């Protein structure tokens, strides 16, 4: 009994854990398909693909992707090379130096990314000045600095991945190659490199992903070349839209796709290896064919399901037109808005009456304190002209007002009318206002 209780609690824990881990990603992905202008799952308005369209028209995002790819490629090359050299050195360094050396090359993993970014910036700026180069030299170029800064710690990750494989390498293999007449370079290229290839591939993928998602270091070094992550951070800080969700969905989908692909490939290799062990020479030639790709390979099956789903979604997206639904929702919202405005008006009326009674003063000119917030929409400032229904709908789509999400300051004092629609509670600007 105790045992089954333990088992149940383990599964409950696992469910909660993976909800925490994957739930946010799922919810974020789903919001990419909701027509609500603020990324959210509830209330569900209409299924739409418009945010993807917006995403692909955003020049800053596209430019960010381009920069990220360039920097990622540079970082992969530099950090895999340094990581491999570092790993090779670790296996043959003088024993007395090994601990110190290991501490040095592992340290960048623990040093905060902010510190790495700053030190890179400061150091190369100094080098640049010492060489008497101008502010536009290669050494102060955003791409160069970012690649250098990121590689500092990404190379450590690569080194760890590579050294794990290198430890299983038999140095006698290199010696055998040399003994058979190969030069050191040939032995490296023909023996060690093929042996290390899986680890190098892992390290390269790891390096690229780490570079692609890096923010802390890059934010100090990017100069004139903001990466995708930098652009995203700017966007998220200054107002969020579902097109970010759309981008996130694409990244999640790609990640899942490649993870499954990789898993399916690994599984297949295992099956092939197992088959080879049993097969005789004659059988080997024609045996492993496509159908067995799926045999006992869960990941491969999932992969196919995933691909079919993608095709379906894309197919739907081209054929589907949410216009009618969006129009309905808009109408609905307008009705709601109207209703609220009526209520609001009633409230205001009551307030005014009350105030009139309290202070027999000028009744029309008194504004609520909240109404004077900078950037508040006109409709809000002048609720009495509330017949302007179409404009009021914007309150529910705060970002439609422009990138600077000026609704930010509106929260607590605003009348309840704004409550439902405001994303302003997230208030990215208030961060800045403390600066």
């Amino acid at each position, binding site marked *: 009994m105790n045992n089954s209780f333990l088992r149940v609690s383990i599964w409950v824990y696992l469910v909660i854990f993976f909800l925490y881990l994957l739930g946010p990603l799922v919810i974020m992905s789903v919001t990419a398909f909701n027509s609500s202008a603020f990324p959210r799952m509830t209330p569900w308005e209409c299924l739409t693909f418009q945010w993807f369209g917006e995403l692909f028209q955003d020049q800053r995002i596209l430019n960010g992707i381009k920069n990220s790819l360039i920097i990622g490629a540079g970082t992969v090359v530099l950090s895999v090379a340094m990581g491999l050299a570092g790993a090779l050195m670790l296996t043959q360094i003088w024993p007395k130096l090994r601990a110190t050396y290991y501490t040095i090359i592992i340290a960048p993993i623990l040093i905060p990314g902010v510190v790495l970014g700053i030190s890179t910036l400061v150091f190369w700026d100094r080098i640049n000045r010492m060489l008497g180069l101008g502010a536009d030299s290669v050494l102060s170029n955003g791409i160069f600095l970012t690649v250098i800064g990121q590689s500092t710690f990404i190379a450590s990750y690569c080194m760890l991945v590579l050294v794990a494989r290198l430890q299983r390498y*038999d140095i*006698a*293999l290199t*010696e*055998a*190659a*040399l*003994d*058979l*007449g*190969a*030069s050191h370079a*040939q032995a490296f290229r*023909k*023996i060690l490199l*093929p*042996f290390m290839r899986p680890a190098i591939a892992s390290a390269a993928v790891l390096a690229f992903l780490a570079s692609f998602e890096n923010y802390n270091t890059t934010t100090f070094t990017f100069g004139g070349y903001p990466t995708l992550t930098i652009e995203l951070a700017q966007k998220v800080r200054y107002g969020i839209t579902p097109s970010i969700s759309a981008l996130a969905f694409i990244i999640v989908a790609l990640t899942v796709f490649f993870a499954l692909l990789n898993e399916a490939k690994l599984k297949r290799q295992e099956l092939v290896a197992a088959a*080879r*062990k049993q097969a005789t*020479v004659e059988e*080997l030639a024609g045996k492993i064919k496509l159908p067995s790709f799926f045999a006992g390979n869960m990941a491969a099956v999932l992969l196919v399901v995933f691909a079919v789903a993608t095709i379906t979604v894309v197919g739907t997206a081209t054929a589907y037109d949410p216009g009618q639904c969006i129009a309905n929702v808009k109408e609905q919202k307008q009705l709601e808005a109207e209703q609220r405005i009526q209520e609001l008006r009633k409230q205001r009326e009551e307030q005014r009456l009350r105030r009139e009674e309290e202070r027999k003063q000028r009744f029309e000119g008194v504004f609520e304190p909240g109404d004077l917030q900078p950037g508040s929409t006109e409709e809000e400032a002048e609720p009495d002209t509330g017949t302007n229904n179409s404009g009021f709908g914007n309150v529910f789509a705060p970002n439609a007002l422009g990138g600077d999400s000026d609704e930010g300051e509106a929260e607590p004092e605003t009348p309840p009318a704004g409550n439902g629609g405001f994303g302003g509670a997230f208030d990215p600007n208030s961060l800045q206002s403390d600066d």
Partner: protein
Amino acid sequence: MSAGVGVDLENLWIRFGDFVAVRDANVNINGGDFFSFLGPSGCGKTTILRAVSGFLDPSEGRVLIGGNDMQGIGPNKRPTALIFQNLALFPLMKVWENITFSMEIKGASAAQRRKRADELLDMIALPGQGDKLPSELSGGQRQRVAIARALCAEPDVLLLDEPLSALDLKLRQHMRTELREIQQRVGITFIYITHDQGEALTMSDNIAVMRAGVIDQIADGKTIYNDPNTAFAASFVGENNVFRGKVKQVMGNEAMIATNRSGDLVARISTANQGKMKEGDDAMMFIRPEAFAIAPDGATGDHFVTARVNHEEFEGNVFNIFTEGEGGKEIKVSIPNHGQSFQDHTGQNITLEYETHNAVLVPAGELAAE
């Protein structure tokens, strides 16, 4: 013997820090010889091999191959091929690619390489296995692939670093014959490293016995077995019984020694030590188990030993008697089985007889560990 390329070590010293791995080695290996370095692990024999193949620089002295000084010439430039203890087959290459790796380095075409690989695979009796991976072969097959790979490089000298140690006993014995056959067929110099005296004795033209960095004796197998230079060589190669004592009197090539237990015994001074041993020296006398015979009770003299029998065992071809010896070590006596009846002597004293020329006297020295 065909005239192959010889290898000479001249005053070779190899040090790692303070540790001396090889001390003043002087060896001349004739071209076309099957030459073994025999010694316990850690004696420096692998170090010598690495110096010959070029992975190690000698601290002092020279390595000559075919009369040419190899100083400063890397392993990839030397006319040697090494078969590693763990074989070091390239795990990601197919068998035929492994075998012809040296040709790939020289830029040979795939067709040429395939052809040569097939020839070599036939030679090592693995026809049609070229497309397998090394991991798909058995231990003995891998062994042969490693040999083929080394031979494909057409070396003048083939170096073998205990290549049989990973195989089981049956296969090991089979491979001994096979290696010897291959060596005689290709006619190049083989330098073989082993700690197994059986391997060394059965295959080699000449053997160097090594102990802690020092070469004790270089000779053919028979000489080493019958006429060892040192106590170590006598005790390491084959089974031997040791009697310690002091030289009492030197009589030409023979000497009388005074032992602690068995009285004065006479022995032949080993060839290398003749003329060097004098009265009063500490000495060791070695007598092989099979060199004893049981003497009639009460026989005494300088070639009789009396001892108490601890236990006996019957091994088929021989009958072994273990008697009390010196320092806790037993004296082993093997009587050949000719179908005669054996009497159980356990607990009794017996008298053993030997012929003087079978008792070898060397200066006292370090014995091989059991």
